[in-house]
């Protein structure tokens, strides 16, 4: 046995020459095909679909959510979840509205919005890591708390006074049809792609998501890593709050109600395993665009938005059941 290995000094290849089709690559190509189908269908439904300005308009209905879906993907890969994100938007938007009403300059309003988001994320992260409480419970609590604080501050008031130039962030165009919002999304998508797939941080995220114990025993500070992830989600919720507030031009406590669902759906639809450990930013971006296009197409044929929630819900249920159904089918065929 041992002599065999000494004489047979064949080199082990780094990667197998015929790569087994990675299941996430397959999932992404599946998303691309569906997306293509939706676009073709949409262009049949309405001659206005392929108009660049229309397409650009369509991006507004998903970019803010998509900005949060990016860090949320990392968080879910690391086996945690944050359902307080929409409430963070509400709180951050409220605080921005308050200081803007006091006459704060543009930069201060923006920075405050992002920082309030970051602080909320820090609060979630500390509760989860210091007290070892499941993140779902913590964020159910902070979800009420953050939005509740908005209600305490605003009640049924609406804030509308913002500094000059604030409207550009959510409504302006950088070049031709490329809106500032969409550009922001593209930039952050690239940043998070690098973060998850190229950086040390991403490697550690996958290791933690697949086996937190082994990651810890390999010298990774699991708690600190998770804390950073929660802060990232908070910061990006703050960014989304800035863009959304600017786009709407007003703040009320009920802003972004129910967004956490569509954001989590985007992430899961993008192929991120809800149990943690696997997923890609590419998949999430595709899922985001797919959901945007479906919503847009339904708007073209005047289907009410609530039907979209049914479709989103069904998609979510289907997508999470799919792996199980496939493995059941395989097991049956083996017998």
């Amino acid at each position, binding site marked *: *046995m*041992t002599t065999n*290995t000494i004489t047979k000094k064949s080199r*082990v*290849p*780094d*990667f*197998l020459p015929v790569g087994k089709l990675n299941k996430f690559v397959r999932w992404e190509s599946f998303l691309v095909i569906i997306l293509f189908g939706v676009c073709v269908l949409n262009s049949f439904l309405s001659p206005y679909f392929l108009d660049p300005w229309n397409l650009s308009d369509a991006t507004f209905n998903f970019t803010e959510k998509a900005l949060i879906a990016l860090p949320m993907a990392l968080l879910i890969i690391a086996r945690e979840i944050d359902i307080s994100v929409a409430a963070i938007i509400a709180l951050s938007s409220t605080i921005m509205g308050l200081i803007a009403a006091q006459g704060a300059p543009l930069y201060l309003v923006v920075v405050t919005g992002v920082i309030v988001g970051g602080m909320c994320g820090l609060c979630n992260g500390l509760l989860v890591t210091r007290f070892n409480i499941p993140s779902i419970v913590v964020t159910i609590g902070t979800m009420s708390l953050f939005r509740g604080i908005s209600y305490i501050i605003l009640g049924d008031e609406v804030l509308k006074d913002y500094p000059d130039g604030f409207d550009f962030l959510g409504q302006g165009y950088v070049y031709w049809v490329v809106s500032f919002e969409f550009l922001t999304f593209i930039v952050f998508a690239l940043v998070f792609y*690098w973060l998850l797939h*190229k*950086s*040390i*941080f991403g*490697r*550690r995220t*996958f*290791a933690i998501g*697949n*086996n937190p*114990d*082994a*990651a*810890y*025993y*390999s*010298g*990774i*500070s699991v708690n600190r890593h998770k804390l950073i992830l929660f802060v990232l989600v908070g910061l990006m919720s703050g960014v989304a709050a800035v863009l959304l507030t600017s786009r709407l031009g007003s703040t009320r406590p009920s802003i972004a109600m129910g967004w956490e669902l569509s954001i989590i759906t985007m992430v899961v639809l993008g192929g991120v395993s809800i149990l943690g*450990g*696997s997923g890609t930013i590419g998949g999430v971006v595709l899922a985001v665009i797919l959901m945007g296009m479906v919503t847009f197409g339904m708007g073209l044929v005047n289907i009410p938005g609530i039907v979209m929630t049914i479709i989103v819900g069904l998609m979510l249920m289907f997508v999470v059941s799919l792996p199980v159904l496939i493995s059941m089918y395989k097991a049956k065929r083996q017998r």
Partner: protein
Amino acid sequence: MSEGSPIFRLEGVSKLFPGVKALDQVNLNLYPGKVTALIGENGAGKSTLVKTMTGIYQPDGGDIIFDGQSTRFSSPQDSHKLGITAIHQETVLFDNLSVAENVFLGNYPRKHGVFVDWQAMFDNAQEILISINADIDPKANLGGLSIGQKHMVAIARALSIDAKVVVLDEPTAALSHHEIQELYELVDQLKSEGKAILFITHKFDEIFRIADYYTVFRDGRYIGEGKIKDTNEAALVEMMVARSIEDTYPKLEAEIGDVVLDVTSLSHPTEFTDINLTLRKGEILGIYGLVGSGRTEAMQALFGASYNVSGQIRIDGEVVSINSPAEAIQYGIVYVPEERQKQGIVLELPIYQNISLPQLPSLSKRASVDLDDELTLARRFGERLQVKTSSWNEQVGNLSGGNQQKVVIAKWLATNPKVIILDEPTKGIDIGSKAAVHTFMSELVQLGLSVIMVSSELPEVLGMSDRIMVMSEGRLVGELGREDATPEQVVTLATGGVVS
């Protein structure tokens, strides 16, 4: 066999897991009123056998014969109904429920046919607990009990039904000397009640104390059986390992140098107290202790993986404070855990990513991982440990247990450590890989590393160590040199006895 016919038999039973034949056509006979000892090393398939007998696993081949009838268990409930009951190695009880309910769960006493009769449950539980000399309040929450007490509850549970076959899977592993004596009395009592008992162990003193018959397994295969009175320890060892101890442990001479690691009065509020040890360059220090003796906990404390630890650790003479594995790795202490799949490796990630995990910062430029450097590292250490794989991108989960262990060791070797702690390094891996791990240990110390090897396999400890320290009940109870250590001495110390 003149003592009547067996009440429970296995004939040619096999159980397959992906890539492993856990049981390969094994036989077993259990006789009423007799104790049969099932003997085998770790990984011989003993625990799989228990789970197959109790309906947790379904066999892939062979026959289960109960009372002369061939049966199939499709769930644990089926075997339970026939009166087959097991006390599993890991406690499978409910911390949130009362002691009485733990005893009767799945088999509640009823009132009017439907309602759970709590009064009867408490009374019956009390009765059973008294009959086994366990002073435990049946109304207490199980979560507040000690391990030993939980064990007694598990035994009470097994006795709550009119059992015909009782399986005890390494029942003494976590018990104190005193508790073990009580357990023996209990087994004698069960025998006199005519129950057939399967006693799983790898301690020889126990076998000769209580067993009537023996059956030996090795690597998932049935080797032989017979009456205890017709055999002796040497013969059993021969059957168990099929080789003598000397030629399997390739201990090479290494030059022993200065003290690398010096630990003084390392203590933990509940797990261990006052651990003092020194480790020299080029030395293999064996630590022997039973499950629950605090050996793993003490090693994890050295590695910074536990809280509330007091004491002093010096590395190369300098006092260091280690509060996390990350810090331990920086100081050159690494730990190959016993729970390999839980703590050692990330099964879902490829080999090269597992090997590079502890030192990603040194393999990256501006926080981006450099794939070339990473693969070079993986290749270098993977080849050195002779990991058998088709590609360095293979998922670790697809490798055999032995090769997974090699990946863990490769990962740590790549960090260039001073001290490597191996906790049960050969648990559950095949004989070929075992030998490779042992050979490699010898090579490591020749290169000037220091090794602490924690093991509950006597031959391994005796065969590989320069010095042996024995732990019992959270304390170091003795130290023996390589030349003067005998199996008897080590076992006596570990079970709380005194060596003259």
